């Protein structure tokens, strides 16, 4: 007897056959979008994908849209999804998981496969992303030393937050040894604790130049880094797997440097606003919470002027007394000086000669004060007020 199927059971059987084929459950198809008029009211997208000879219907449920590219009718896209038969219409269709607009080449397919694998492994989970310190003390920059990226980073950070230390690990950012060198630099930064943030950055370039940053090795090193990693790779529209795994992503080197540093002008404003609020609060507390302060203030204002007045009066009196004493002292000294002056004048030689006293000197011009200083027969000079007597010692009589 012939095996007779109901339509539903036939399609259910066919779906079972499809389910058993693992290739049809995780399939990659590239082609051109057609019959697409934008998302339906439900948010789901219904369209077809075709090549020159064939066409397959596609359904892309709203919940699966996250992380996929937008597309329009006529776009060439790469789809990942699974084949099924939609029983109510009897259509073979592709249930879409993700859509990528760019890169229909083999490399892009490889990257997309890697992205999905790493995503499933949890490398891009937002909950595992490390926190970026608000006020970094040391930023370890992994980039090429003679690059515009490095110049841009230095410029931005000098202007925004010069409190920080920058440590550059000069690194090859493109070419053959780039992957190994970048991984090595991330490793060094971690082993030697060279910063509280790693900034992995390079300027724009060709897809080929940026390709190392889609490598599994670099992605895994970023993932394993104990220090949070911020990327600033290429231009705004460049997306690499390193950006996905990074803890924060800047769109460019400049953008990344801005994300990780506070602006010094904002900080200045913040401090002055704290200062102002603190003064207001302090004044308010003193005036309203402690009214006794006001009483003490008034008391002080009343007491102090009186005290000061008394002090000033005392000082004036002291000054007056001191002046009196000083003048007495000076007068005494002046009198004493006058007396001394007079006494000296008495002993003035000229004055004495006038009174009949004379000076005697020997030939060596020494003044003779005693008979012992002269010998008999020695010539002496006797100095008088109006002249000199030359004389000779005839004899000495000592008294």
């Amino acid at each position, binding site marked *: 007897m012939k095996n007779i199927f109901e339509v539903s059971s036939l399609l259910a059987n066919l779906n079972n056959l499809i389910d058993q084929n693992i290739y049809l459950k995780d399939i990659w198809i590239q082609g051109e979008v057609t019959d697409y008029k934008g998302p339906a009211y439900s948010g789901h997208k219904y369209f077809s994908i075709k090549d020159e000879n064939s066409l397959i219907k596609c359904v892309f449920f709203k919940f699966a849209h996250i992380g996929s590219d937008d597309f329009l009718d006529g776009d060439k896209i790469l789809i990942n999804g699974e084949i099924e038969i939609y029983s109510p219409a009897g259509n073979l269709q592709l249930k879409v998981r993700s859509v990528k607009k760019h890169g229909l080449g083999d490399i892009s397919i490889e990257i997309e496969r890697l992205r999905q694998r790493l995503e499933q492994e949890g490398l891009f989970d937002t909950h595992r992303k490390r926190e970026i310190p*608000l*006020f970094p003390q040391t930023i370890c920059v992994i980039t090429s030393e003679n690059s515009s990226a490095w110049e841009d980073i230095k410029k931005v950070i000098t202007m925004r937050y010069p409190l920080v*230390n*920058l440590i550059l690990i000069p690194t090859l950012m493109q070419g053959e040894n780039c992957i190994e060198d970048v991984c090595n630099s991330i490793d060094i930064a971690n082993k030697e604790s060279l910063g509280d943030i790693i900034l992995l950055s390079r300027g724009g370039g060709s897809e080929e130049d940026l390709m190392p940053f889609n490598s599994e090795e670099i992605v895994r090193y970023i993932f394993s880094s104990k220090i949070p990693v911020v990327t600033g790779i290429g231009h705004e529209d460049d997306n690499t797997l390193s950006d996905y795994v990074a803890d924060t992503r800047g769109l460019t080197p400049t953008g990344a440097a801005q994300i990780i540093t506070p602006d010094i002008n904002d900080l200045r404003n913040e*401090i002055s606003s*704290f*200062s102002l609020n603190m003064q207001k609060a302090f004044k308010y507390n003193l005036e309203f919470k*402690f009214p006794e302060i006001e009483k003490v203030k008034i008391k002080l204002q009343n007491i102090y002027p009186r005290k000061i007045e008394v002090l000033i009066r005392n000082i004036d009196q002291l000054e007056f007394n001191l002046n009196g004493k000083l003048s007495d002292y000076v007068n005494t000294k002046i009198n004493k000086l006058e007396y001394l002056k007079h006494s000296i004048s008495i002993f003035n030689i000229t004055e004495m000669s006038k009174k009949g006293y004379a000076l005697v000197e020997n030939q060596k011009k020494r003044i003779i004060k005693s008979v012992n200083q002269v010998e008999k027969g020695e010539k002496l000079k006797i100095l008088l007020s109006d002249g000199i007597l030359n004389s000779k010692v005839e004899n000495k009589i000592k008294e």
Partner: protein
Amino acid sequence: MSEINSEVNKDFEDFEENLLLLQKIVNELENQDLSLSETIKFYEKGQLLVKQCNKALEQAQLIITNYEKI
């Protein structure tokens, strides 16, 4: 409260800590029921922190070092 009673950090590296402490002091002065001596103590400490933070910003100078890979 114990943090506010701690010493003011004088190093540049403690800028963040000083700023956070200043913020706490302002909050305490604005919202807490403090004694007179606490009010004065907090205010004095806050003034010192404002001075310290501004000094850190004025004197800040970017230090750049190149790491030598072996």
